[in-house]
């Protein structure tokens, strides 16, 4: 996903001269092509995230489309108030880019586990969440954000994720994106980096009659389209590599809160807080938190 991000950003930046990339002294072996090709639009802000996000807002207020790139919680929780006040409140076209979504940096410890970010970012009015499920959705989200400049959060994984679409799909906020349709009336709906995992689950007997959809663009302003999409199915299981509290499943429940008959069709598969403070590979920790490769629920999972 990182490669797709920088390739697509380079491509877009060659057409749109207002695109700037700001990094928090991170991005080794990823951001160099942009820095070399567009040195006037590349800024290493140093290890200073609060100033970085405030500066990004300042540059955006002068016409730049700023992408602020860092790892996991550094461009989000560390400078949450700058995102809230400076970026989102002023409706400035800054995209906060966090690599290492979910438990991608599982071995690096709790500091690097991005499992509470949806909860933080979806609490902000004007903020669009972009959580692509594969490299092609990364490109799709970037194209959408350049065509629709606004405050946004782009959550991407690391490297090596498989592509699950045949081509770059067209994405719109709040709209479910079909990945695999088998004509049934049950659906797995994934957001972010769990899409390949959900794809694996389709091979399991428990999910043999499920379709697979992705929802890469969502947020506070896009709840109203959910009820009609849920209504098309008898069962909707949301999947996310985020804690159950305040995440994607919570968002969906809020979207359905006034329609109890639809709420009953929804189940959420999220991470248990037991993963907090534990290290391991991404797949190990996902399984430990309740997202097993075979799709089975665990007692500890939620």
């Amino acid at each position, binding site marked *: 996903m990182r490669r797709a991000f920088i390739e697509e950003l380079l491509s877009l930046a060659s057409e749109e001269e207002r695109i700037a990339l700001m990094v928090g002294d991170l991005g080794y072996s990823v951001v160099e092509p942009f820095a070399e090709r567009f040195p006037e639009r590349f800024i290493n802000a140093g290890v200073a995230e609060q*100033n970085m996000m*405030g500066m990004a807002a300042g540059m955006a207020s002068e*016409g730049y489309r700023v992408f602020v790139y860092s790892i996991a919680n550094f461009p989000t929780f560390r400078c949450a108030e700058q995102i809230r006040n400076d970026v989102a409140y002023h409706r400035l076209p800054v995209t906060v880019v966090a690599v290492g979504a979910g438990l991608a940096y599982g071995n690096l410890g709790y500091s690097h586990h991005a499992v509470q970010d949806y909860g933080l970012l979806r609490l902000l009015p004007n903020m669009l969440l972009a959580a692509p499920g594969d490299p092609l959705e990364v490109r799709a989200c970037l194209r959408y954000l350049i065509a629709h400049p606004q405050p946004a959060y782009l959550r991407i994984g690391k490297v090596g994720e498989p592509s699950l679409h045949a081509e770059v799909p067209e994405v719109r906020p709040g709209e479910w994106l079909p990945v695999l349709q088998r004509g049934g009336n049950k659906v797995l709906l994934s957001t972010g980096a769990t899409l390949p995992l959900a794809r694996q689950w389709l091979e399991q007997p428990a999910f043999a009659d499920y379709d697979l959809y992705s929802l890469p663009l969502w947020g506070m302003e896009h709840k109203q389209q959910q009820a009609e999409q849920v209504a098309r199915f008898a069962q909707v299981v949301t999947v996310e590599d985020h804690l159950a509290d305040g995440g994607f499943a919570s968002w969906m429940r809020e979207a359905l809160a006034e329609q109890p008959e639809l709420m009953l069709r929804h189940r959420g598969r999220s991470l248990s807080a037991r993963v907090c403070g534990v290290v391991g590979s991404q797949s190990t920790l996902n399984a430990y938190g309740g997202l097993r490769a075979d799709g089975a629920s665990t007692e500890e999972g939620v």
Partner: protein
Amino acid sequence: MNSRLLANTMRVLALQMVTRAKASHIGSALSIIDLVAVLYADVLSVDPGNPQWSERDRFILSKGHACVALYAALAAQGFFPLPELEEYGRDFSDLMNHISHKVSGVEFSTGSLGHGLPFAVGKALAGKRGGKGWRVCVLVSDGEMDEGSNWEALLFAAHHRLDNLLLLIDYNKLQSLTTVAETLALEPLAEKLRAFGWAVTEVDGHDHEAVRSACKGFPWQVGKPSVLLAHTVKGKGVSFMENQVVWHYRNPSEEQLAQALEELAQAREAG
């Protein structure tokens, strides 16, 4: 309107606004009124008839709690009609009790401290990289210099040689609860700022000619951002408010307002 007359007018308007709205922070506003008056009368290149003029100088008020000073300056300079100041502090008003970008002429909303300087640095960087002629001025409080984000921004602005940026520090030596010295001592502040790579000038922040001369002449060193360390008096211009920490929060009674306005009328007559 010359800066002295503008400052006197701003003090009257600010006191009226804060009293009417039963609001706080009049001491903080009075502290910066001379600085803001000089900026708007003589330094900033702005157009009240075209607040979004692309070539304007950008002014950021980072100590957003002192907003009545800026609202008063903007209304007095014609950015919006003076009677609109009566909306200050009312329910659903755009003239919020911390500075609001919904008001004509205001670049940026603040209220949480430590946000204005990084935002201003971003603007200055955009100006530099875009080859723009406009400049960026940002006004922070002394207590606000406790914020780590400001020191991050100081590092960045010096490293990137943003000499299109002027930082004004309202150094009145009082914070919310007590003195700066008793809270988190900043001294030696000028030396710290120089060590961070900034060109530093210290002035009496109520001496209009000194402030004017310094601000009009920046950058003082090519390749360095400038910081005006303005020694000020919290509550300046109203005798019973000067240097009294209580006026960070207290709002004036009608009697205190009348006394303050009388003092300002005398000052106006005295020129």
